[in-house]
């Protein structure tokens, strides 16, 4: 196997594959390599609907081998360290790869262990502790919702950035609707415990979401971070982010969005900023210290919501600027922070949030997207997955 690549891509997720496909279309794939340890690829935006009992989790899974573009080399290994000074990457299997240009898109990892009591309870039958944030645990969410017989259902969001800013609350909306359908809503308390200071990152959409919450009798507590679970007592400990005061909530089911962070080789390596994220220029997506390195996707420090829709707009910028640099030309492509968060508010209802770095709405459709719509739900549930598998990952959309 080659150990040197013109272009080496770290990560075979949404960002890595999209960039690889677009590069292959432009220059062929013979000198491109992708480092990705996983044999499976997941369309994670579907996991909200899997947790809501609408799709089986298997619908979100494909073989990675079927998605790697022709001619591109798949190095099935994980990255241990990147040394930008020598333009080399050490792998966990002991290999060393070198590159002329590097694209860093390893995604983020769940920090389950950061919350005491979570590892031993999440996804385990009978605990009531669930999470949509992994393939292994996502099916347990619907089991917990389906078997809920009333009491307190808690939904959490951590202080760290998460994949799709709306996802921690989407599952609450689906659960609340399911509780109505099963006749237990009257004897249930539905609470959203969000460590962040606002309900949603783009203020334009907050009033619409607040109306949904108020009209359906859900509760929201902001600035409350989950710091521990006591599975035996079914208690969750929350700390007020501002005052440090702790409160204990007893739960009958709890959906946990774990803290997320870049993998260790990024957090502790030379590519990271002070907070551990890949430090790229937010417009050109070029690394601020190592010009031959580009970064995109969830592990980057880009101040926007981490979504597949954002990657769809970031990938062409990385490709354009990387090829310009390779040709000795100025970097002209710019990313404006576009991201999209389809906030499912129930089965057949969705608020389609789209915004940029300035958190201003950048909406695709000529209608008020703050309104709950069936058409937007149908787009998310039935159109976007097809667009993803057959368009985006193939470099066509």
């Amino acid at each position, binding site marked *: 196997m080659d150990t040197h690549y013109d272009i080496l891509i770290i990560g075979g997720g949404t960002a890595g594959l999209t960039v690889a496909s677009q590069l292959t279309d432009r220059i062929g794939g013979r000198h491109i390599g992708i480092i990705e340890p996983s044999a499976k690829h997941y369309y994670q935006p579907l996991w909200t609907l899997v947790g809501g009992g609408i799709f089986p989790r298997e619908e979100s899974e494909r073989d990675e081998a079927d998605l790697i573009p022709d001619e591109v080399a798949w190095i099935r290994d994980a990255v241990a360290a990147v040394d930008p000074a020598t333009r080399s990457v050490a792998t966990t299997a002991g290999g060393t790869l070198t590159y002329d240009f590097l694209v860093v898109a390893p995604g983020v990892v769940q920090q389950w262990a950061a919350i005491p009591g979570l590892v031993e309870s999440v996804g385990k039958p009978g605990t009531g502790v669930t999470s949509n944030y992994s393939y292994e645990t996502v099916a347990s969410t619907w089991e917990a919702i389906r078997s809920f017989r009333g009491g307190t259902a808690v939904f959490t969001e951590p202080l760290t950035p998460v994949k799709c800013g709306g996802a921690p609350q989407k599952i609450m909306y689906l659960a609340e609707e399911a509780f109505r359908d099963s006749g237990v809503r009257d004897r249930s308390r539905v609470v959203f415990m969000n460590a962040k200071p606002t309900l949603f990152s783009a203020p334009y959409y907050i009033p619409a979401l607040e109306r949904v919450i108020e009209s359906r009798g859900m509760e929201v507590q902001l600035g409350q971070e989950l710091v521990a679970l006591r599975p035996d007592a079914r208690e969750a400990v929350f700390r007020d982010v501002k005052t440090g005061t702790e409160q204990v909530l007893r739960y009958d089911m709890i959906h946990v969005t774990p803290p997320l962070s870049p993998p260790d080789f990024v957090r502790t390596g030379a590519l990271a900023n002070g907070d551990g994220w890949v430090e790229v220029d937010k417009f050109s997506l070029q690394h601020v210290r190592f010009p031959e390195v580009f970064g995109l996707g969830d592990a980057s420090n880009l101040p926007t919501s981490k979504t597949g829709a954002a990657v769809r707009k970031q990938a062409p910028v990385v490709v354009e600027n990387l090829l310009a640099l390779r040709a000795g030309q100025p970097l002209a492509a710019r990313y404006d922070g576009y991201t999209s968060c389809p906030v499912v508010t129930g*089965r*057949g209802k969705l608020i389609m949030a789209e915004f940029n770095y300035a958190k201003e709405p950048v909406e695709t*459709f*000529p*209608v008020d997207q703050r309104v*709950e*719509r*069936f*058409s937007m739900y149908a787009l998310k549930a039935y159109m976007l997955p097809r667009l993803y598998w057959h368009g985006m990952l193939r470099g066509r959309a």
Partner: protein
Amino acid sequence: MTPEATVMAATSMHPEDTVSAGATLQTIEQRTRAIAEVAEGLRPLIASAHQAPALVAVLMDSFDEAMRTARDRGIDVERGLMNGAEAAVRFGAMMDAEKVRDLDALLESGVLATGTLRVIGELGRALTETAAAPPAPLGIVGLLKALGQPDVQRALGFLVTVADRFGRRLREQTAAQS
């Protein structure tokens, strides 16, 4: 030398070149006119293209309003569409030409007539209620007692009449086949 020949000599042109250049000019003129006509024809389309977003907005708002109205009436359109599509596909996969003919016969029998559907609905309701609270086993004495109830008598009258007509049709069908 004629004045024209003098000009041609000065510009190194041959008499055939002028014919060819004239023809080219004429072709360009014709094509320009054709393009202008096409552009003119496209003008209404271009004008309406500016209205496309508004048209899309009207369609989307109307569609979503219809879906909201259905939901308010207790109809879950999303489930209905998905389950309906799956049921239709399964039903379609079970059919063959002979079954389609049998289905035709069923549909032409009047089974979908309003009155018939209502009766079938009542029968379905009775079955559901009975299944929800299954009755105790009935012996001869219980049966004789039940025969004295007006509702049982009404149902029996209905069923006996159905049996009479059903038997006549079976006899006619057997005769037609032999």
